[in-house]
């Protein structure tokens, strides 16, 4: 596979390490009342769709960026690639 890195352009997916569902960006509040359940769902119940999937990849053999890649799990077509830090920052701002 080839991941079109937002900064570096197309790079072989072999340079990356895969983590999984991008909802791992949304770490729950550790002090919330339902923290135990929230963390359970956060860590263990991830999206596993047959189709579009937002997922985290790490450019380990490159610039060390974490990326959010939107990819179809049936065709492997990659629809969008973003810097995870930008996504996380935007989510943080939106939450404020």
């Amino acid at each position, binding site marked *: *596979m080839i991941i079109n890195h937002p900064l570096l352009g197309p790079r*072989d*997916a*072999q340079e990356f*390490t*895969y*983590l*999984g*569902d991008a909802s791992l960006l949304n770490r729950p509040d550790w002090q919330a009342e339902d923290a*135990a*359940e929230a963390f*359970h769902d956060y*860590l*263990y*119940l*991830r999206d*596993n*769709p*047959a189709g579009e*999937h937002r*997922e985290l990849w790490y450019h380990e053999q490159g610039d060390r960026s974490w990326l959010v890649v939107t*990819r179809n*799990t*049936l*065709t*492997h077509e990659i629809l969008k690639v973003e810097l995870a830090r930008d996504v996380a920052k935007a989510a943080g701002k939106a939450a404020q």
Partner: protein
Amino acid sequence: MRFSALRLFKEALTGHKGWGPQWRDPEPADAYDYVIVGGGGHGLATAYYLAKEFGAARIAVLEKGWIGGGNVGRNTTIIRSNYLLDGNEPFYEFSLKLWENLEQDFNYNAMVSQRGILNLVHTDAQRDAARRRGNAMILNGSDAELLDTDGVRAMYPFLNFDDARFPIKGGLLHRRGGTVRHDAVAWGYARGADMRGVDIIQNCEVTGFRIENGKVLGVETTRGFIGAKKVGVSVAGSSSRVMEKAGMRLPIESHVLQAFVSEGLKPFIDGVITYGAGHFYCSQSDKGGLVFGGDIDMYNTYAQRGNLPVVEDVIESGMALIPALGRARLLRSWGGIMDMSMDGSPFIDKTHIDGLYFNGGWCYGGFKATPASGYCFAHLLKTDRPHETATAYRLDRFMTGHMIDEKGQGAQPNLH
């Protein structure tokens, strides 16, 4: 019709006119007591044991395509009970014992062949871990032997002993491990179930569950609604997709495991060898092909195909271990979709929906579990209690903190 050498002899002399279908293709009835979703090895075994061991009747197996077309038809055929943890080893040992009597049990030669599995160790720490595992196996009634380098060399002199990046320091030998002709497992269970009245319905995809007041009433299919008192879902590889139709999210990701076979070769490898310093395991089929595999492709996927980096990684490891492989040729590679669970261990459990049961999360280890999985799932479906060897395979174990993590990799499905 019973299969036997005598029968074969008679048929050979009379033009094989007497063989009938090994299973029927019935039309689905309106309702059953038990509907098993998924005509793979586990689903067919479940139906077989429900009928044979638990006296159940009115059973249907619904298969979206053709039976045996899932992972039972695309694996590397290994059977073993060399697990470490209490939650696992008794179950896999139960499975191995069922394998040992399977052919006579279902009157089908599935070529169960216990030629031994050797897990190589390359460091002192690996040897310590192998010792702990071997002892756990023995304490659970399985078999294990710890070999030193010379012991390994005596079995497989062609391994790389002299020029290895990671020298072979020994291995854990599990003599009762081995291989099985995988397709025959599906067919044998199908034939055995069919003979006991189970309706095997191919080309019948489940499109939804009819659930009212927290109770399942049946399944919607491409061939119409089929009522059921109990529905058991056994569709590893598609578990998330199917259970989503019942509104459930599972601690499972789907990944592709590639498998490989070489051209047919004269006997070279007797048993199963597992490399401890790279992703490679290998056996040789009765037809002569070297059947091997390694790591999963790391990303979530439902496409039954993998990519080149893993092919190279697996064969690099193979070449590092067996330098003589260079002149053999890779004949075919294929991919199967694995239910990779969050701790690498499976589920055989009721769901929160009354009458709906789930069996899945087998990672890349489902084939060897087929008999016990079917037996235990049948036990659960019939009695509503888990079989004694499958009590740990609960869906809520991550909530309670009772993970069964053989590899110690945590909630990272692609590392199990």
